[in-house]
């Protein structure tokens, strides 16, 4: 519990990075949100057995990280957190899908392993890019951009609250588990019973606190509209950013670059 707690608190560090200053940070949030959406759609739209064609897409997160000064190790660390979920999702593919798709010498690789690797790669790509988006923009600004791009305001506000709620929940659970640890005298488990009542208690407390935080927002004039103090306009920088990246991403989606390279090499050798 404690480690999950600190991991989520670490997410707040990501939010702090959004206050940095770089060409990417200064771009209008809408441009970044749009390109990220194009990126995610491109990556997700591949068939489950596609693996090689995904690798060129790493260029986008890599360039973004190098331009913005977000520590790459931080992003990688956050992605490692994701692994258990992806493993749970894709673990049974190799078991059920045993048809050999690729023959490497004597080693046959089944479709299951390929689709598993594909899921893993796609998760790393999409979640990593989403982290980079928040780290260069800030979650409030992302929600605001989504709204200005046409998402209904209710959804955008819900999204923002959901995000805040995660923090409130982990903070409360951090406190509760610390109190429990301190009073359980080093014994590990106090049994399911105390855990059950603690969870119920935790949800109630979280709910009450979330309500008080909402109250504090209302008390300071929050009316469901997002405002940020970074004034940004849609200018040439944004248009260039969108055109160049979307162009490249869509190009990579349509033409399988590793294949092309392979064909080119094969052609020049023969």
């Amino acid at each position, binding site marked *: 519990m404690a480690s999950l707690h600190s991991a989520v*608190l670490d997410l*707040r560090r990501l*939010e*702090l990075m*959004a*206050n940095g200053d770089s060409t990417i940070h200064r771009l209008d949030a809408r441009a970044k949100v749009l390109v990220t959406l194009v990126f995610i759609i491109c990556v997700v739209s591949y068939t489950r057995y596609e693996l090689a064609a995904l690798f060129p897409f790493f260029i986008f997160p890599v360039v973004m990280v190098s331009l913005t000064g977000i520590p790459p190790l931080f992003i990688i660390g956050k992605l490692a957190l994701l692994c258990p979920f992806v493993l749970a999702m894709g673990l049974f593919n190799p078991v059920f899908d045993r048809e050999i798709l690729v023959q490497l010498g004597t080693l046959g690789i089944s479709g299951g392993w390929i689709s598993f690797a594909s899921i893993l790669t796609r998760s790393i790509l999409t979640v990593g890019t989403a982290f980079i988006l928040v780290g260069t923009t*800030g979650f*409030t600004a992302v929600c605001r951009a989504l709204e200005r791009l046409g998402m209904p305001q209710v959804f955008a506000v819900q999204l923002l609250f959901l995000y*805040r709620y995660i923090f409130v929940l982990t*903070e409360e659970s951090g406190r509760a588990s610390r109190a429990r640890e301190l009073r359980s005298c080093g014994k590990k488990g106090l049994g399911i019973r105390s855990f059950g009542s603690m969870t119920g208690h935790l949800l109630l407390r979280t709910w009450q*606190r979330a309500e*008080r*935080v909402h*109250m*504090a*927002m*209302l*008390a*300071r*004039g*929050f*009316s469901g*509209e997002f*405002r*940020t*103090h970074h*004034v940004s306009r849609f200018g040439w920088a944004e248009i260039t950013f969108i055109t160049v990246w979307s162009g490249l991403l869509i190009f990579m989606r349509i033409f399988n670059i590793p294949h092309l390279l392979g064909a080119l090499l094969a052609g020049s050798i023969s």
Partner: protein
Amino acid sequence: MSHHIVQVKGLRHIYPDGTIALQEVSFLIHHGESVAIIGANGAGKSTLLQHLNGYLTPTAGDINIGDFPLTRATLPDIRRTVGMVFQDPDDQLFMPTVFDDVAFGPLNLGLSGSILEQRVEECLSRVGAAHLRDKPPYHLSGGEKKRVAIATVLAMSPDILVMDEPTSGLDPHARRQLLALLKDFSHTKIFTSHDLDMVFELCERTIILHEGLVKADGPTREIFNNADLLAECCLEKPFSMQNCAACGRPKTGL
């Protein structure tokens, strides 16, 4: 709202679990008054304050702020008029940095650019927290959080300031600073406190709550001189009014 009066009539609050936190509370606070609400733990002070900006709804009774009754329709305006500092600053700070947090209110009021920046800086330095502006609120000490929470409310320039235990957790210097700041604030102020010396210094008027009832309501000096009343409500005279601990003589200047 020209007159920032606060009127509470027959206020009663029963929590969903059946606890009667407020039995029957009535008072009228005039424009520019500075009123302390004191009482033992669990007397109902926080419950009372949370009614003043509509966080809790009365089980019975009415509340008027300025010329308006507190209803659903007037709530947004009333929340802008009444600035409230909660007892627990963690409930009040929710943005990624101190600056963003203090700026949140003024942004919603429509400020932007350098005016906004100026307002935030000013409020932070008024509570002695200017150096904290780029820190995340969850990495602050308890007293620092309290100061920032107060700054977030000041930034809204409220007409009525409501504070639940503003000095709890502050060091003596910060407490002094807050006292000076509150003395400067010329609008209506209402606060609860266990810091009776502060009450004695700041408020002409004191209301004692006891088990959900108004036990006394009058000039602060009179109330603190009534030893029987204080004892009955589990309170004590402020230190500055007690006899000198070393020599047993009354302190000078009183």
